[in-house]
């Protein structure tokens, strides 16, 4: 497990990191927690000439609440999220998902920014940030911009980040009153990545019907996605067996899903259905408090 020879540079600030990216372009890879990149390098599936280590950029390691949102720096680790009191109170589905990533060693090192920018189709966060309708902050040579998360995941390991840009922050909304969310994962028994992972968000109207529903699905397709058709069918409905059966029917097309050693597309479609049903029920119960 020996990677190809590479140069290593440590950036102390976002500007330093951007300058290095500008200078080295395609030859460089950004290193955060390293828990996706380093294994690929050891297997020589990724052979960057330069690693730009952003791990020391202090301002990207913070979680703070601002204007009804919680802002997480790209370098916040899964473990920090898992144990964050602020998130447990204001957006508990994120710690719930973080606790299901990898193992303690991975969670101690891996970062939310790294995971989102890597866009592994079976990572856990994408489903959750989609269901939360989060925002991604990217910083590039022309300054900062905000990318709605629904536009962020574009394909297999492909995001809306532009060359030379760094994912710097993620903003998730504080859970509004009478809302609930849940993340359920059907793990690959070997890798423990999601064969299918479903995050559901439900906000109730005063009459206990669904005012807002969002369903984020990871693992099933080349990129995480929202089950928008099913979401629409549930608005104005209560969550019970009948409405779920009607709303989730054909919620995904197996032709759009992955088929691999872990599961065929047909089975993945079935899991999407089962996990969505279960996640919506949990989210609905939580919304009721």
């Amino acid at each position, binding site marked *: 497990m*020996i990677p*190809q020879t590479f140069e290593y540079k440590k950036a102390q600030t976002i500007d330093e990191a951007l300058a290095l990216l500008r200078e080295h372009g395609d030859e460089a890879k950004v290193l955060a927690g390293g828990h996706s990149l380093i294994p690929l390098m050891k297997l020589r599936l990724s052979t960057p000439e330069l690693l730009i280590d952003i791990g020391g950029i202090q301002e990207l390691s913070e979680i703070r609440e601002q204007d009804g949102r919680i802002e997480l720096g790209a370098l916040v680790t899964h473990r920090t999220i898992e144990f964050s009191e602020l998130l447990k109170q204001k957006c508990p589905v994120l710690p719930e998902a973080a606790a299901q990533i990898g193992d303690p060693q991975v969670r101690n090192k891996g970062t939310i920014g790294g995971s989102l920018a890597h866009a592994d189709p079976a990572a856990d966060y994408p489903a959750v940030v989609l269901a939360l309708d989060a925002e991604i902050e990217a910083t590039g040579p022309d300054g900062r911009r905000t990318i709605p998360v629904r536009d962020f995941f574009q394909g297999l390991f492909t995001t809306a980040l532009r060359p030379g840009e760094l994912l710097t922050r993620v903003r998730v909304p504080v859970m509004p009153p009478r809302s609930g969310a849940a993340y359920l994962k*059907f793990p690959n028994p*070997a*890798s423990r990545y999601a064969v299918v992972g479903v995050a559901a968000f439900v906000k109730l109207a005063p009459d206990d019907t669904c005012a807002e529903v969002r369903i984020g699905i990871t693992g099933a397709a080349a990129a995480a996605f929202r089950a928008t058709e099913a979401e629409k069918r549930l608005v104005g409905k209560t969550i019970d067996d009948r409405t779920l059966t009607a709303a989730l029917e054909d919620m995904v097309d197996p032709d759009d899903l992955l088929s691999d050693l*872990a*599961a065929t597309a047909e089975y993945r479609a079935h899991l999407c259905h089962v996990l969505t049903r279960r996640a919506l029920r949990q989210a609905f119960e939580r919304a009721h408090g």
Partner: protein
Amino acid sequence: MEARAYIGAPIRRVEDRRFVTGRGRYTDDIVLPGMLYAWIVRSPHAHARIRAIRTEKARQHPGVVAVFTGKDMLDDGVGSLPTGWQIGPDMKEPPHYALAVDKVRYVGDGVAVVIAETKAAARDAAELVEVDYEELPAVVDAAEALKEGAPLVHDEAPGNLCYVWELGDREATDRALATAHHVTKLEFVNQRLIPNAIEPRSAIGHYDPGRDELTLYTSSQNPHLIRLLLSAFVLKIPEHKVRVISPDVGGGFGSKIFHYPEEVICAWSSRKLGRPVKWTAVRSESFVSDAHGRDHITTAEMGFDRDGRIVGLRVRTIANLGAYLSTFAPGVPTWLYGTLLAGQYKTPHIHVEVKGVFTNTTPVDAYRGAGRPEATYVVERLVDLAAHEMGLDPAELRRRNFIQPDEFPYQTPVVLQYDSGNYEGALNKALEMADYWKLREEQKRAREQGRLIGIGLSCYIEACGLAPSKVAGAIGVRAGLYESAAIRVLPTGKVQVFTGTHSHGQGHETTFAQIVAHELGIPLEDVEVIHGDTAEIPFGMGTYGSRSLATGGSAIYRALEKVKAKARKIAAHKLEVAEEDLEFRNGQFIVKGTDRAISFGDIALTAYVPHDYPEGLEPGLEENAFYDPANFTFPFGAHLSVVEVDPETGRVKLLRYVAVDDVGRIINPMIVEGQIHGGVAQGVGQALLEGAIYDRSSGQLLTGSLLDYALPRADDLPSFEVGHQETPCPHNPLGAKGAGEAGTIAATACVVNAVVDALYHLGVRDIRMPLTPERVWRAMRGLPTDGHAS
């Protein structure tokens, strides 16, 4: 003072302190002055002709010392890796060179070795070795390989057939099945497994030109055998000029029994270069280069009379041997499999036919249980399914067929003579521990609530304590299977024990020390167990097949008897009495009926300072023994598992696992329990999680890393409930049978039986292993469970 009764005591393993504090010394921990590092260039193709290998660029890479190919080794007279087991006179034994010469035959087959000052340089330069391959069609499935027109793996083996082997009475079995009241038939795959010892294999060749001596450090389960094969067969150098050291070894499960190409490559290249050469596998290399296990395609039929008594068993198996014959490969799906097909039952007629087949896959050889889990799977799946089909309780059907305690020794129709057993006793104990009838009630109630609970049984037998050498010879093993021991008592009364077995996780340093301390009445701390270095230990056969205690422990016991006999002579002289007037108790020779005594320590000192000493007796107190067992040992047991299947996703949760094992006399119950736990975990792994998958057209190993190959983890398993029954082995001095493989042998069938039990009312008779959620989900819907990847 009463000496401690060490035998039977649950003593913590003395070796664990160094292991858990990171102070173990594994092959890869060893750094020798001037050491070089080898990286092996492996074939990316399953089957290809090597047109040319260009090594110039790699040679010029900074730090590279040499690049060798298979041709270099062949030209230097290096021989083929030999096979240690012959199955019939017509068995095909195509050559297996450490590095492929003209053709590569599986993904991972070595083609060249790059040797450099650093591992990184060797790794980088390996990418500069240019191999010109002419790709050939490949075949990975053994049944496909037998078909007309299949790609030919070896010219020497037409039709890819290595051998056809049969055992038992074909006609009598056919007749019994033709007239049976009921026949249960199953066609199934016992899938290929990848062992995954926690320590990847490693080897260091260290040639000393001054003394013309070669030392090979290797992560092996049997150093003496490696020395014999390497010196006499492969490198053709004098055996006494070779020393093999297997230091601490981090697990093997059988995969480290065999003589591997990398051992030859490191040894030979060190001789060429005059410097030590080390190779250590990376995990993805272990996946393709460690011998795999299992990989059978089987059709089996079991016939019953009207009362549910077994009348006959017919088994047809195609065994995938991989691309080359690994050291003991031919014997595993034959003698270690077919002879166990009687299980615990009175089966009057058995006939088994096995075809050993070459394919373009990693060689297959013994893996924990080796043949016996496969046999148990055949018998226990059939019995369980038959009970369902005949509307009988699975425990009851087994009861009707058990060999009874008063029927031993029991001659099976497939060679073995079981020496002892109480099968019903073990089953009853397991049923009691699990509260079986209450479980059946709960299962019924759960089903009414839409929950799918299943209960599985597995009553296994194994043949361990390998093996009586005469029998080994008769069944084609090209070695004796006795074991050796030497006991060296030091002048201070401390004792060194040299064993020909090899501990790679079994805890021999504790168990063997317990035997010695118990028998000599000395503290455990006064005993040191030494193994793994051919320069220190007597010629022994290593560790596999749960043989170490039954054969190695018995050899130690025999050597102890000699030590005690000589000590008695010295004691009689010192105490001026006749030998028969002495009794040995609590570490002292005592003159019967008196308080006159001499301690073992004083005798030891006298032996080495023989100033006042028996006339004609040799000084010193050191004895050795070679123990050749009279028979195999036959551990057995009954396991029970409870599973719950998620009716929506097909996911199986193992709720309970009860294991009752009879491994004979137990020296250390804590170690035995640990062995059962580990074994069960691996057996559950095969049932639910593990399975090597090759791409059928390209021959690529698709499950080539831990990202895709699922090993069982703690959260996949319940807390095991372990019980014991002790029926001592009647023919070895310790009464021990062996415990290393029991769990693996029982658990796979046990868990599959439980899942099928949960789903039988839905029309499910069988599900292909591993029972992944998708397969179970498909089975519940009546869809086929093979033919798709997972």
